């Protein structure tokens, strides 16, 4: 399998910087923001975005993680998955603007599950979606608000996001599946 690098470390950090500015612009500052990453890699993206938001706005932004395993619609079709921890910042999400962070947006089913999970935790004022890569092929009426890179892809291709926190380096590759 030959994998082609589509985003290098510098591209990823530029994309996240831009997304952070876009979030501040659309939200008019960092007030009432809560960042929630979707495990596994969304959690690290959320943490990086939170750090950038704090750097640009001077205001601390609560960050947490939101596991969606228990809300998936394909639990009976895939091998059993172990849930990951969900951590909601102390202030909760009621009345806040929640930014969901994920690495790749594909069918939209993960985000559908995340919206259900959020509904059981509280009632945010608004929910926005930030994703590092949007590869298309949506199966649900869901669209991202903040995108690092649009990557039109074929369904037979595989997009692999690697982050330095778990994979040792930052890069996004695209390759054919076996």
């Amino acid at each position, binding site marked *: 399998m030959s994998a082609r690098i589509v985003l290098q470390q510098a591209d990823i950090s530029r994309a996240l910087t831009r997304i952070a500015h876009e979030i501040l612009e659309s939200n008019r500052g960092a007030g009432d923001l809560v960042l929630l990453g979707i495990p596994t890699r969304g959690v690290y993206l959320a943490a990086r975005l939170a750090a950038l938001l704090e750097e640009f706005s001077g205001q601390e932004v609560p960050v947490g993680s939101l596991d969606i395993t*228990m*809300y998936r619609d394909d639990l009976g079709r895939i091998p059993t998955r172990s849930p990951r*921890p969900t951590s909601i910042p102390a202030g909760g999400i009621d009345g806040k603007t929640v930014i969901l962070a994920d690495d790749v947006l594909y069918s939209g089913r993960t985000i559908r599950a995340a919206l259900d999970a959020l509904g*059981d935790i509280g009632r945010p004022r608004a929910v926005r979606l930030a994703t590092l890569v949007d590869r298309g092929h949506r199966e649900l009426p869901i669209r991202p608000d903040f995108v690092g890179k649009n990557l039109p892809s074929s369904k037979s291709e595989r997009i692999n996001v690697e982050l330095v926190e778990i994979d040792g380096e930052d890069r996004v590759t695209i390759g054919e599946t076996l």
Partner: protein
Amino acid sequence: MRHLLDTRTLSRADALNILDVAEDMADTQLREVKKLPTLRGKTVVNLFFEDSTRTRISFEAAAKRLSADVINFSAKGSSVSKGESLKDTAQTLAAIGADAVVIRHGASGAPHTLAASGWIDAGILNAGDGTHEHPTQALLDAFTMRRRIHGAGASRGRDLDGVHVVIVGDILHSRVARSNVWLLASLGAQVTLVAPPTLLPVGIEGWPATVSYDLDVVLAENPDVVMMLRIQGERMHDAFFPNSREYSRRWGLDDERLARLTGDSIVMHPGPMNRGLEISSGAADSPRSTVLEQVSSGVSVRMAALYLLLSGEREDQR
């Protein structure tokens, strides 16, 4: 996992996985909306041939929190009292479309029979069979110990290596004791069983535990966990000990013995308690007691077991 029948053959990795998933389930139980949509459309049958309140409602609460449909079946007042066999009952449940059967039965091995028979395709959870095993009770006990010893936030992935657990009482009839001995051994704990010689089973030498007849000697070793077992009045048909006063004096956890516990030692009891017999009210209500924590742990652990049994593509159906 296909079934949960005992802790003796449960691998250490599977046991830790259940305990870790139970941590996630426990987190969801702190939320405003406690219900998860995970097992929507699945049917769980509680098949209880023996009386039970807390285990049955705990399984019922666990299944309902995961959005499964629950059917309660108790032998009393059912076709079983008209003489229906386990096979016919199982096949009836299969025809109804049960995805999991939680079974409590007076005969040791009944859940194994159900799982191995081919009468029913559902996942089988043993909720206590005769004097054999009660795996979810042992798992909830281990979960409770792990949370008290490592702290609720820091328990994931941890075992009970080096933890000294004393189990006191009717070991002979206790499936809770058996399940705990096997599970605690695979989690690395050191187990001491304390009982009058008449309440110890034949063949106990082969268990991964040490045996003592003297509670005071064992308590002097400063155990981390003291687990008191219920004196099961319904099984006390022979003269296992002269009278309950004598039992209480030699093997009961009274206020005076409670006062001798030091450090962070905890007192456990699977319930229902005979206050004044195996445990005093002072011990049952002390800050060392985890009796109510065990009940809430029970719901989390059973949610984890139901999730692991009922979600996921089945290997034999691939």
